[in-house]
């Protein structure tokens, strides 16, 4: 590559990153505005943390709900997804491509449609059995597992297909039980794929609006939906402060995961197909 071309490319890259990161920087700056104004002021007027102290407690509750549902979805999708991928790749099924396509299907369903589907499903279920899933943790969790399962199945299948079965054969022939073979040989090898899938399961669940929107209510809501309604109907600058805190939380989570699992996981997370 010629030097001029490389600099041209680098300029494009810098511009793209500026676009990607600017919203977060701007949010953080305006959240520190000290003015009395009840609207967004950018650049901030004076510096103050008053909007941080004014974050209503209800947001903290919906934040906790979002984290809990994200973690639960990642765990549930992780368990179901790893088992499913093992079944698909190693089972004696003929139409493996069809099975994979079936598990990928939720990715093709527009999210807003999934939301409507679950809303109606829960209505019918309530009418038939009296089980109330609308505005419940379980109801939200089921819907979120549904939209996040494809990510785990996809990444784990990809890793398993490249897996060298001779590693397991060696362990098993030397006397390890099947469970030990799985725990000590298979699992460590597929772990990056599992973590990548679970990370995406968490991301998809944690940030979701179009599905949750139909399933939450005043008694139980998630942070993105809470923020969405605040922006639509009763904006106040403490939302900027809260958003900044969530951005900081997200960055710290990513850094922590990176420290724990290595860079590889993050790259793989994007390469889900």
């Amino acid at each position, binding site marked *: 590559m010629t030097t001029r071309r490389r600099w041209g490319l680098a300029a494009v890259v810098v511009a793209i990153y500026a676009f990607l990161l600017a919203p977060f920087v*701007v949010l953080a700056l305006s959240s520190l505005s000290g003015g009395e104004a009840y609207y967004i002021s950018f650049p901030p007027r004076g510096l103050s943390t008053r909007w941080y102290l004014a974050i209503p407690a209800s947001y903290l509750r919906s934040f906790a709900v979002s984290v809990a549902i994200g973690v639960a979805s990642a765990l549930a999708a992780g368990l179901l997804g790893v088992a*499913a991928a093992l079944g698909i790749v190693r089972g004696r099924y003929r139409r493996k491509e069809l099975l994979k396509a079936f598990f990928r299907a939720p990715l093709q369903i527009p999210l807003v449609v999934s939301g409507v589907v679950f809303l109606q499903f829960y209505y019918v279920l309530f009418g038939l059995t009296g089980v109330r899933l609308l505005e419940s943790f379980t109801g939200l969790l089921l819907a979120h597992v549904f939209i996040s399962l494809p990510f785990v199945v996809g990444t784990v299948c990809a890793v398993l297909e490249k897996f060298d079965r001779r590693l397991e*054969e060696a362990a098993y022939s030397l006397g390890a039980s099947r469970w030990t073979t799985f725990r000590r040989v298979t699992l460590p090898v597929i772990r990056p794929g599992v973590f990548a899938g679970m990370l995406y399961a968490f991301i998809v669940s944690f940030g979701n609006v179009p599905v949750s*929107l139909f399933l939450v209510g005043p008694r139980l809501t998630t942070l993105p939906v809470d923020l969405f309604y605040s922006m639509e109907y009763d904006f106040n600058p403490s939302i900027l402060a809260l958003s900044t805190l969530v951005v900081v939380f997200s960055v710290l989570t990513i850094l922590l995961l990176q420290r724990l699992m290595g860079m590889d996981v993050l*790259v793989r997370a994007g390469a889900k197909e």
Partner: protein
Amino acid sequence: MEPGHPAVAALPGRGPVKAGLASGWDSLLLPALGASLLLFLLPQALFVKNSLYAPLGFGRIGDELTLQNFGRVLTDSLFLYSFRLTAYLSFLVAVVAILLGFPLAYFIARSQSRWRSLLVTLLVVSSFITVVIKSLGLIVILGGSGPVNRVLVGAGLVERPLTLLNNQFGVVVGLLHYTFPLMALVLLSVVQTIPASLEEAAEVMGAPRRRVFTRILLPLCLPGVLAGGLMVFNMSMGAFTSAALLGGGRVPVLPILIQRKIISEVNYPMGATMSVLLLVAVVALNVLAVWLLGRFRRLSAGMRGTL
């Protein structure tokens, strides 16, 4: 390993190693398959059925199956406009995401600097943050007194602040911000599979840069690029949040129409009808795209065979 090998013979009660490890995987699929059928096919069936009842207002529905909802929706000019608008905006976002994402992915994949891991981490961080917060940040940036307009007015490029929000431009920017990090990560994984040595070989042989791109990079990346574009298109077709917040209700894409029908008008059958049509359109487009990709792959494999 031979069945008669001492290591195997030493383990009484064990059959051949391969056979011992081969069985029993089938049943592992069942929990997820069961859950998916229960959470996927059953609700979908109920939902399609719901679109076949007539709405009676105030959330009540008729008790006879009818196709009248589909007739009404398909002749509704707002719905048809919204359908075209959603598809057009999604297509536009997919094209822009490809055009911006490919150079970025290429740069990261071929870079050997220590910035590389930072660049990837930033993409992941950006995809991690919920679209609501992204939209809020974009509203601050694109607003009438936001930094973009201040710079434009300050530099004398425009006389009055431009309207960058509550219109299609705002929605496209929002959708792009929502889908781009994922697109870049997918494209990165695509470009990474192509060895740099292929390009170097062509350059050493005297191929100009443009030819290296059109004859080597593009054909090898095309399936992955199109798959990524399809992903962005799918995400945009169902995206509600950025369209609602950055369109300010003035860009009536289908997800917004559906949400209004269900939450504001409590008209479940009509909401379901619109959702069914959106679903059918997206699935049909995906099937078509996968079929075309398959044909393209066979075609290029055939061409390689003749070389």
